[in-house]
Each structure stands twice: as C-alpha cells, then as structure tokens.
C-alpha cells in the first residue's frame, strides 16, 4: 500500500471504527476515524482521504452514512466511497449506489475478504493517481 494513501472510517461504533482503521494502518495506509457524520465531513474537508469507508445506520450521529455520502459527492466525485453496513435490503443498496457509492459491503465480513476488497480499491486508487501524474 502506498504510504500516502489516506483512509477515513466512519462508524458510530467506536470499536468497529478502531478495528477497521487498524486493518488499514497495518497495510501501511494513513487512517482517520470518527463515530460522527458531521465530524467525518470536517475530517474529509481537512484531509481529503482517498478512500472513505462509511457505515449507513448511525442513529447517534448527526448525519447518517447516506447523508454523509451525498455531502461528499456534492464536492468530490473522485475519492472512493465504500459502504460498510449491516443493511442488506435492495432499496438501501440502490440508494447508496445512486448517491455514488463505489462499493457496498455487508457486515459481517471476514477479515480476508475485507482485506481483499481494500487491496483491490487501493490498486485502483494507486493506478488512477499514477495516471493523473
């Protein structure tokens, strides 16, 4: 993983946030995490992460995951947005994709599968960055 690649993990469960961030950092990425949607937006404005891993259902957050995704997409269409959620109904998946989610992962997911998805995303991001240089 490129050292310069930045990740943001947003999940209203702090333990999940930290664990996913740890998986990313182990691979060499720079991770940011938060349990709150509005704070996520502030981190996003400040850090401009290459990849955003976003939970949808965050009842204690000021913004839910789909609202956050929409706000990110209003300003940026390039960064990769990955939905990591327990919600597996077709309507939510459709809404997330319409709003601009690049990947949709349903919890629970095994560590290896999660790493595989992240590796694929990273390769694409790296490739796009190289192309843009």
């Amino acid at each position, binding site marked *: 993983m490129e050292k310069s690649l930045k990740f943001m993990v947003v999940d209203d*469960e702090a*333990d*999940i946030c930290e*664990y*996913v961030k740890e*998986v990313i950092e182990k691979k060499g990425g720079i991770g940011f995490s938060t349990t709150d949607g509005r704070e996520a937006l502030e981190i996003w404005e400040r850090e401009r992460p290459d990849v955003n891993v976003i939970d949808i*259902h965050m009842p204690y957050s000021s913004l839910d995951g789909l609202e956050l995704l929409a706000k990110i997409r209003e300003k940026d269409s390039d960064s990769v947005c990955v939905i990591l959620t*327990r*919600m597996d109904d077709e309507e939510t998946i459709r809404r997330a994709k319409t709003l601009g989610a690049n990947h949709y992962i*349903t*919890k*629970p*997911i*095994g*560590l*290896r599968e*999660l790493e595989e998805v992240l590796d694929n995303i990273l390769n694409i991001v790296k490739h796009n960055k190289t192309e843009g240089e």
Partner: protein
Amino acid sequence: MARPLPQEPVFYEHLKKEKVKVDSRIWEILEHHIRNDLFLVEMILETSFYDSAPVKKKDMKMAIERIKNIVRVISRLKKATTRENLAT
C-alpha cells in the same frame, strides 16, 4: 456451528408455506446487534488466526462482551414478544 435441529428443514418449509412475517422492528433490533457484534468478533478472531498471534486481552474482553450482548438482546426480544408477556 450448532447441529441443525432435526425438524429445521420442515420449520423452514412451514414458515414459507404459512407466510409467517416477522415484525420489521424485530429484524431491526436483531440485525443491528448481531451483525455489528459478530463483525467485530470475527475481526478479532481472524486477526489473531491469520497473524498467528494470541488475542490481546482487551480484544478478548471486547469479544466476550459482544457475545454476551447478543444473548442479552435475544432474551430481551423473546421476553417482549412471547404470548405470556404480551398478555400482561
């Protein structure tokens, strides 16, 4: 994995045939807790498994708490939805 009940295939068949619907709030509670809790437990165990490293004590505690939470939620749901309780 628990051994499937001998009647399990029949149960599924009957549930489908009788068009048994579960209140969406029950699914909401179950899925919220079970999927999030199991996700974390799976992450903790697989990290240890693939790294061939012992589970850290703090992670062990977290996994145990998450498993206990699943049991708590199921008991609470059962209590709230069984006929005996609904009658009172």
